[in-house]
């Protein structure tokens, strides 16, 4: 596998690891961007890992585009050969699936959807072969997800579920994007979940909502005081399905600024994962459950 490098104007180099999404491609991209960060190359101003690609922004008055490209190419071999072992963390995020707010929004924009006669959850469950919405939610919240990219807007994570490809949940985006999405909606488009960090336009299918802020420009939320964005590429996220009572109780704790998410340090090996996906995930989830 060889990275397709390309100049994005005179200030960016774009590297596409692969056209299609896979954890291997994500890890190669992450290894590349980590290597660029460690190298501390003068003139590099932004280092952005993405799902199966990455982007480096630079100041061409400081480093010649061709010189930077040569440096990146010299890192490629090491990045794609490295046995990807990542020191990272697993974060548990409570999610109220089938909540009234995304449901109301979903009904308001029905004419923009592929199937105006179903809800987003009913539609997604059906096209992914689940008999009921409940089974679909169980699959969605049963296995963890990788934060494979943060962006679009501030602090919005793209999440890729840690299951084999045939179990990946896929859903098209709305036919025409909505003009509104509630803040902290859990959405899904293509093979990615996303959490809307702010209220706004969106085209992803909507499944639920988390009470936990993930972006706070005022840094008043206690766990967002240092970093205003909760998620970084490489984080692992486990959704915990909760009901209305838990949602309300958590929200109350958050408003009193007493709540914080459960976060545990962990190590992730792609090799171990590929040889035993569910065993690896079970060990990660044990960290959260404290057993």
């Amino acid at each position, binding site marked *: 596998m060889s990275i397709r490098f390309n*100049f994005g104007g005179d200030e960016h180099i774009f590297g596409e690891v692969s056209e299609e*999404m896979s954890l291997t491609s994500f890890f190669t991209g992450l290894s590349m961007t980590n290597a660029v960060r460690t190298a501390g190359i003068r003139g590099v101003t932004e280092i952005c890992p993405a799902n199966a690609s990455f982007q480096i922004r630079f100041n061409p008055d400081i480093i010649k585009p061709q010189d930077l490209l040569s440096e990146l190419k010299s890192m490629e071999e090491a990045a794609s050969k490295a046995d990807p072992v990542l020191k990272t963390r697993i974060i548990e995020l409570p999610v109220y699936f089938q909540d009234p707010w995304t449901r109301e929004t979903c009904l308001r924009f029905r004419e923009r959807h592929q199937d105006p006669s179903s809800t987003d959850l009913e539609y997604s469950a059906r096209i992914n072969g689940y008999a009921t919405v409940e089974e679909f939610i169980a699959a969605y919240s049963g296995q963890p997800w990788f934060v494979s990219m943060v962006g679009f807007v*501030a602090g919005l994570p*793209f999440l890729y579920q840690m299951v084999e490809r045939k179990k990946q949940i896929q859903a098209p985006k709305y036919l025409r994007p909505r003009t509104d999405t509630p803040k902290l909606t859990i959405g899904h488009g*293509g093979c990615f979940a996303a959490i809307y960090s702010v209220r706004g336009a969106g085209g992803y299918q909507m499944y639920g909502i988390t009470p936990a802020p993930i972006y706070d420009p005022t840094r008043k939320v206690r766990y967002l005081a240092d970093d205003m964005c909760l*998620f970084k590429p490489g984080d692992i996220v486990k959704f915990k399905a909760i009901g209305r009572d838990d949602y309300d109780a958590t929200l109350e704790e958050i408003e009193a600024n007493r709540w914080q998410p459960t976060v545990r340090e962990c190590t992730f090996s792609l090799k171990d994962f590929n040889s035993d996906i569910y065993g690896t995930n079970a060990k990660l989830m044990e960290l959260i459950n404290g057993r």
Partner: protein
Amino acid sequence: MAVKVISPGLSTSVQDLGRPGHYHVGIPEGGGMDRFATRIANLLVGNDPGAAVLEATFMGPELEFTQSAVVAVTGGELPPKLNGEEQPTWESFPVKAGDRLSFGFLKGGARAYLAVSGGIDVPVVLGSRSTYILGALGGHQGRTLKAGDELPLGEGSGKAGLSLPANLRRAGNSPAELRMLPGMYWHRITEAAGNRFFEETWKVAPEADRIGYRFRGGTPLEFVEREQPFGAGSDPSNIVDACYPYGSVQVPSGTEPIVLHRDAVSGGGYMMLGVVISADMDLIAQLQPHTPARFVPVTLEDALAARTEQRAALARAEGHLAG
């Protein structure tokens, strides 16, 4: 102590030269969309070129000063009026406590920059005073200005009567010519579609803001047929979500190109045809809706030469102002 906002105009926000370094978590660089105008406005009033100014879009605000200061308006031709009397653009003039600054109708360009001696002294967030409206971050309470807002000023010491002559400013063409380095996902469209993209004249659509500029009026793109890669989505314009460069030209569903600007969304799932060169980003900031525009293909060498030329033009302007 301050500048009071009597009426805010259409979309007026505090901007400086931006906050690079946070794009990987989706926070764009931001800052004045027209960097040249932002820098020169500051230099005219004796500020550091990176001090915070007001960026007014299409329509100016009405402001009242509670202290004396020196101000200057650059960028689009939005004539300032002091207590109703028209003042020159690209030239510093004094204001006193109690004076009202308003603006006439826009005569050219799209965005004006108002610098006040001492700079707009809102809190620095992540290294910048720029307003990132989508993320409610920085500037004055993370948003565009509203009537009743009061903006604090820093300590300044500008001189009135300093000006930048017209020959040291950059003139736009009509149709606007946006130079672009083809690349990224250019291979996704047919050769005929690629040729047409550059031959046709487009028009700036009404959706033109700090995030990006949409263009319409050209022929929809033809894509090279392929089986969509896993995770990309079903539309031929879809890719597995990737980062978007500043200036990148994405074409959702192959119909209307969007050029991302200083408050760019940092990534998404639409293919890009290439990237508008850094030297032409300021030009985009001054395009009004309905303005005709063409995309002109250039090489990386051309882009770097244009960048060098732009730096030289800035140095000439700075040299003139330093006297």
